[in-house]
């Protein structure tokens, strides 16, 4: 089955990740910020201030939900409590879409709270596809899976990361959140071509872009999401816009939060880079 992102999900424009540091500033609804992405787990609580803030932003912006704990690739059973809370939150928020990561976060009942890469094998592929189908059935919607930054690859892998991601999306009929920074980080850490990665991803599946910053380590690039978007990632973003066209795009900052205008300036830079290309293509 071939899916088009225009089938059911909207194009949202340019957005930001919602973080506590920017709550007050974002309430003013700056015109450049067209939508917000919320971290699902931050609002999977019983009550109190987090949900009050969430409702305020829901009144002002289109929202999407982005999770970090689905652990879609784990060999532990899917966490029923997690899925129930996620489904309940989705009913409250009515997000444009729900996303998580193509990874595992724990096994044997222990959670590493990290986005651990999978071996890219046929076994892992079948396993992930079956679980995505289960989650989509549970949430009654297609989900987006995001590529993670990685520092290890496994001797057993038979496929490239992009072949694996593309195959999961096709077999499970899910969509893709392409983190441009993560593509760059993993390409540098594993020595593959980021452009090959982009070429290997089916355009019709890409629903959202993340843009973020990283830290250069001694040997490896560390995906910190705590810095400005690098020039290399901006260059790759241009290539991604050429390949995938008009895709909802956001800056994802997870730490070292600058004043909101700095993030908005980055978001505007994305717009300045993308819009002429999209206009030419139209």
């Amino acid at each position: 089955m071939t899916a088009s992102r225009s089938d059911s999900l909207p194009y949202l424009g340019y957005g930001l990740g919602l973080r506590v540091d920017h709550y007050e500033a974002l309430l003013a609804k700056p015109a450049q910020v067209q939508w917000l992405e919320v971290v699902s787990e931050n609002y999977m609580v019983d009550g109190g201030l987090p949900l009050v803030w969430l409702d305020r932003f829901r009144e002002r912006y289109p929202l999407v939900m982005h999770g970090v704990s689905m652990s879609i690739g784990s060999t532990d059973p899917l966490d029923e409590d997690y899925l129930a809370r996620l489904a309940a939150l989705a009913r409250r928020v009515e997000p444009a879409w729900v996303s998580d990561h193509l990874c595992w976060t724990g096994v044997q009942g222990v959670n590493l709270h990290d986005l651990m890469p999978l071996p890219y094998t046929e076994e892992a592929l079948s396993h992930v596809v079956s679980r995505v189908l289960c989650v989509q059935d549970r949430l009654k919607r297609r989900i987006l899976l995001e590529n993670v930054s990685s520092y290890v690859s496994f001797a057993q892998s038979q496929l490239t990361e992009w072949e694996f991601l593309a195959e999961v999306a096709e077999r499970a009929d899910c969509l893709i959140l392409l983190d441009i920074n993560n593509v760059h980080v993993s390409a540098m850490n594993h020595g593959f071509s980021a452009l090959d990665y982009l070429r290997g991803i089916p355009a019709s599946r890409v629903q959202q872009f993340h843009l973020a910053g990283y830290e250069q380590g001694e040997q490896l690039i560390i995906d910190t999401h705590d810095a400005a978007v690098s020039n290399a990632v901006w260059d790759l973003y241009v290539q991604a816009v050429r390949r995938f066209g008009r895709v909802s795009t956001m800056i994802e900052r997870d730490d070292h939060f600058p004043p909101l205008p700095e993030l908005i300036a980055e978001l505007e830079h994305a717009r300045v880079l993308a819009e002429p290309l999209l206009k030419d293509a139209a």
Partner: protein
Amino acid sequence: MSTLQAIQQQMLEAVLAANSSALPPIRSDAIADAHSRLAVYQHGYRIRLRDALKNEFAGLERIAGRSFNALLDAYVETHPSGHYNIRWYGAGLANFLQGAHSDRPQLSEMARLDWAISTVFDAADEPSLGITELAGIPPDAWAGLRLLPQANLHTLDCAYNVDAFRRAADRGEARPHLRRYARPRRLLVWRQTMSVHYRRMDADEWQVLAAARRGEAFATLCAILAERHGETAAMGRMVALLQAWASAGLLRGIG
């Protein structure tokens, strides 16, 4: 065991045991060897859990001083996370400190207060019974009714002035001197609408609140005070308690 299960188990064990020489089937290449690659996950795991704890235990940081990071590291090394949400990782810290640092009981006491504040913050919303509603109850109905305190409030017995340390942390003030009380003080932690509060309770309030939480009738609450202070004084104290509880949003209803 499938290949995927085996790989995940090996990765898990390698990340948890930072000094293990056993390596999962990770590729080495010209960019970095397998040990360096694994080390990114080992380091990140510890930083992430420690940071999550730092967010929740502001009072403990004040009372522990320079040993704070070492306390957290010891917890991280011995307590893998069992919950999908890292927000709950600190649930076992107070018990850990009680066992590992029995010579410094103020640490576990402080951690219990920090955790109570943290859990009240995003506990389920509850209705609040105000003074107006209480005033509307017919006089002859009082004896048999039951006051329903907030289900999510916490009470703590404290031998040390841990609330002063938490207050100093909340206000960015200097570290207070540690004091040990001759008799335990009782602390109350609750949320009124969206604000979390904590304060000390006297013996009257502690006993009456405990009885109300057990579901005792209002007449029994009055009898507790009458036994301590006599019938006449008891009524005045009960009225004062009711006014304080209602204005602080401590009552969710009557039953």
